[in-house]
């Protein structure tokens, strides 16, 4: 079943408003991998914190239906959806132009990245991205195995018109085969225009403490609880999270993420002061 004809099927100049008036294009960021446990939700959380710090209105969809991890950390802006159903696909994509946040982050459940991209192709979303009506970016989180790297080729088939980011998430001491240039090149240089992103490792105890606190990284650094009440997190752990988050955000700054989603330059952020 296909969704009705969408706004983004109109000419680019008409999207989101009156012809000739420059309106922000909707931006969709898909975070995914076909393997589990590689840090998809962690990266999604850093993205939501980054947009929050840069005052970019953002909404998020958590496809870990029925129980969403992303929603636990960002309940106010996250909705749990089942991306395999047409009704939930409509909930995400039919509202791109009507929803007030211009940026949509989708945390795609393990194993669903390729099928999700295939669905996007089928409903004409990838073509709309290709023609410039929508900004579409994929953060492909890589795990430390050849199987994980093999996904790159599979995913690459869908990537024309999208910004494709290969995210090396250093959840452990993996090297991503950088010690073997032939293997490394065969994967990482396979796709033209793919950009590497590095997510450094976060101290394990700090990560666990944020998990227990169930708050966004930003609130943890600011020593706040879920309802902005004063909390009493360890100064050391907050320091580790602040340092790590600054490194992650510097990667997002490097790829000019705020420009990509059409909200201009990154602003100085309070957590980096």
């Amino acid at each position, binding site marked *: 079943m296909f969704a009705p004809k969408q706004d983004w099927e109109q000419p680019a100049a008409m999207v989101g408003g009156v012809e000739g008036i420059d309106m922000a294009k909707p931006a969709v960021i898909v975070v995914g991998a076909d393997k589990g446990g590689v840090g998809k939700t962690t990266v999604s959380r850093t993205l939501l914190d980054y947009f929050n710090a840069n005052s970019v209105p953002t909404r998020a969809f958590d496809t870990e239906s029925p129980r969403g991890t992303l929603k636990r950390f960002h309940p106010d802006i996250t909705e749990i959806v089942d991306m395999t159903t047409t009704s939930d696909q409509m909930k995400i994509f039919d509202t791109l132009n009507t929803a007030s946040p211009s940026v949509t982050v989708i945390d795609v459940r393990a194993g669903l990245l390729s099928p999700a991209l295939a669905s996007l192709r089928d409903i004409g979303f990838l073509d709309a991205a290709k023609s410039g009506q929508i900004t579409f970016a994929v953060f492909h989180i890589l795990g430390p195995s050849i199987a994980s790297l093999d996904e790159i080729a599979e995913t690459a088939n869908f990537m024309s018109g999208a910004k494709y980011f290969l995210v090396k998430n250093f959840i452990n001491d993996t090297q991503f085969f950088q010690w073997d240039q032939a293997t490394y090149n065969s994967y990482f240089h396979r796709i033209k225009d793919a950009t590497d992103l590095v997510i450094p490792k976060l101290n394990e*105890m700090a990560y666990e403490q944020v998990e227990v606190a169930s708050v966004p990284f930003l609130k943890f650094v600011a020593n706040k609880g879920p309802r902005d009440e004063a909390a009493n997190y360890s100064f050391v752990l907050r320091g*580790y999270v602040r340092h790590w988050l600054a490194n992650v955000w510097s990667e997002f700054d490097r790829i000019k993420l705020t420009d990509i989603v059409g909200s201009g330059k990154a602003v100085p952020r309070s957590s980096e002061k």
Partner: protein
Amino acid sequence: MPATPVYIVGSPRPQVGKTLVARLLSEFLLLKNGRVTSFDINLKEPSLLDYLPDVTETADVIDTYGKMQLMDRIIVDDGLSKVIDLGYHAFDEFFKMSDQIGFLKEAARRNVAPIILFVADIDRTSARAHEMLKLQIPPSNLIVIDNEYVVRGELPDAMSHGRVLRITALPTFLKTYIDRLTFSFTGYLRQEKDSSTELHQWIRRNYFMFRELELNLILQKS
């Protein structure tokens, strides 16, 4: 309110007099304020804990839990002076961690004043460590300890430009005397009636130096 001082006595080299400085400072603060908390991160050398067991706790920076136990205590503005005897094996990890977690910035925010007392030596490891500290620590918080017994001459040029506290060498027999675990500097001042003895003057000189250091801290804050 004056800032709560945290004195960190450290060097990347063993046997340069860190524990001696930490002992002197702890005893001075105990005499002046009536209380002090000292932390011994010095598992491979003569240990502050052996000399001042009543005011000293052991700590480590090997794992995150140990770092939390230490740093979450010393970042508190409770008016209680703290002294850290930082062993050479923990020197790099401590300052790497404090840089990562933004210890100095957070300390300034919370009215805590970290003072790093770097015990100098003339080798390359010490020179590199001092360079690293200069990049990380504001000049007003970094003090070089020129322990005459160790340096035996001029300080390396790079270390002599900032604030320097000089600890004069004692004759060997007096050094052996103060190295005894039962020896107390303040106890000696109280018991020894003859204030002209070399040891008496040596202790008073060092206490006076620390008093100046405390006064500077108050002046900086005001």
